[in-house]
């Protein structure tokens, strides 16, 4: 197991919590692949060796190197006021090439059960591969942000949490926690 299990894909991540007047609607995740894996993705799934990606390239990446992540719930776990929240199928998938780096951006919609709403809510998201094949880390600049959450006094911050891995014991993983007020 281990010969393959140590991280071979490194991803720097940005998390944006998405709000509308009714409350939390989802998270926008940006995954920036390491240059070496990006180069392999480019060779396997992109029609050109350099330059921007065409819409066909983006579709190819989406179909061959993204949709199957549904099996692992996009490595994403969300809890709402302490309860696990089911995730909808991601929307707004896009892929870009930034120099030698492939970057995925997509939204994971979430809809908290109205019964679970409290005057003040706490929602937490982690992205973690328990097999440790993919290593996720929050990006160093602007790792966490909020959109349209001002009216609900939404605020997000990053911390670290222990996660159980497969065969590696407990390892650290980034946790993004947001608080917001329910609309009156």
């Amino acid at each position: 197991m281990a010969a393959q299990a140590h991280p071979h894909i490194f991803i720097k991540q940005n998390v944006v919590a998405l709000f509308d007047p009714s409350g939390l609607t989802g998270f926008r995740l940006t995954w920036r692949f390491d240059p070496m894996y990006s180069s392999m993705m480019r060779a396997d799934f992109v029609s050109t060796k350099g330059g921007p990606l065409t819409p066909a390239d983006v579709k190819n990446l989406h179909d061959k190197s993204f949709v199957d992540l549904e099996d692992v719930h996009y490595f994403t776990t969300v809890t709402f006021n302490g309860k696990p929240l089911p995730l909808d199928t991601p929307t707004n998938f896009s892929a870009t090439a930034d120099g030698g780096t492939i970057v995925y951006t997509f939204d994971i919609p979430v809809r908290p059960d109205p019964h679970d709403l409290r005057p003040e809510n706490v929602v937490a998201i982690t992205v973690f591969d328990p097999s440790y094949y993919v290593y996720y880390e929050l990006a160093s600049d602007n790792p966490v942000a909020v959109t349209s959450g001002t009216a609900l006094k939404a605020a997000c911050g990053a911390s670290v949490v222990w996660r159980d891995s497969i065969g590696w014991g407990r390892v650290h993983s980034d946790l993004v926690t947001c608080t917001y007020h329910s609309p009156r």
Partner: protein
Amino acid sequence: MQRRRFLSFGVLLAIAARAAGAFADPFNGSHVVPADTGSMFLIPSAILVRLAHMQMQLNDVISREFRSVHDTGSIAAALAILALAFLYGVLHAAAPGHGKTIVGSYFVANESRWRSGLFMGGAISLLKGLVAIAIVVVMSLILHVKEIETANQGAIVGCVSYALVVVIGCAVFWRTAMGRDCGHSYGRAASGHVHGATCASADHGSVVPTSVSDHSATNFRRFVIAATGMVPCSSAIIIMLFALANDAMGMGIAAVAALSLGMAVTVSAVGVVGIGARPVLVRAARGAGQNLAHAERTVRLVGAAAMVVFSGLLMLGAMSQI
């Protein structure tokens, strides 16, 4: 007594089977099967995360230097790649895999000289690098296989390799448990040579070794090296592929050589620890009231069982990737 030994051996195997997880490249259309959680490696997880973070940074820097070698032909950048690849190798091999556990348990099971530990770690790591280069040349350059598939070749070769080591470990365990094995089985069986009560291995100087058992000790070690070293290191394949993408094949080969040397440092260190641990373990077993021959046998059984468990785990993990 013997039944108890086999029972404990079975339990170890069961633990191995349970702890093995499923690993696959999730970005290549593979399906990942959730598996049980269990901790089998004794690396503190905080260190593990540090290692992953450092590898990520090295990955960034090495790829940047590759581009500047490609763009400007800078010698400084080339030297930087070699130094960084070496460091990457040291760190990367510290993470589970790379034959450390197999090398460590081999040397617990087989009394050996310090030099053998260094040699075995070096030989395994260099072989891994060579296999990686060969795989990239054949699969990517000649057969034009997809790059991500090429990088995942380790799983198939790994499966065969770990199965071989399981067989080796089982053979050592079985013969020792049956009382047929002192040191290296083949030598003794072939020469009819009878060891003293210490049951020392063939390459240990204190018991007069026959040339036959000396020879088979070397053969045995070569077999372990070949079985473990034939699994290519995925990182070496990834670096080679990246070098090719940047039209720098020669630089890629040099970088893989540096990476292998780095891994050799870590793997050899574990071999040396195994060699150093053996007398300590034997003393501990004697402290538990066993005579020397008995203590040596117990330690040998533990080492052989560890070989089987660790390579069994690696095998199951590799199998789930295919």
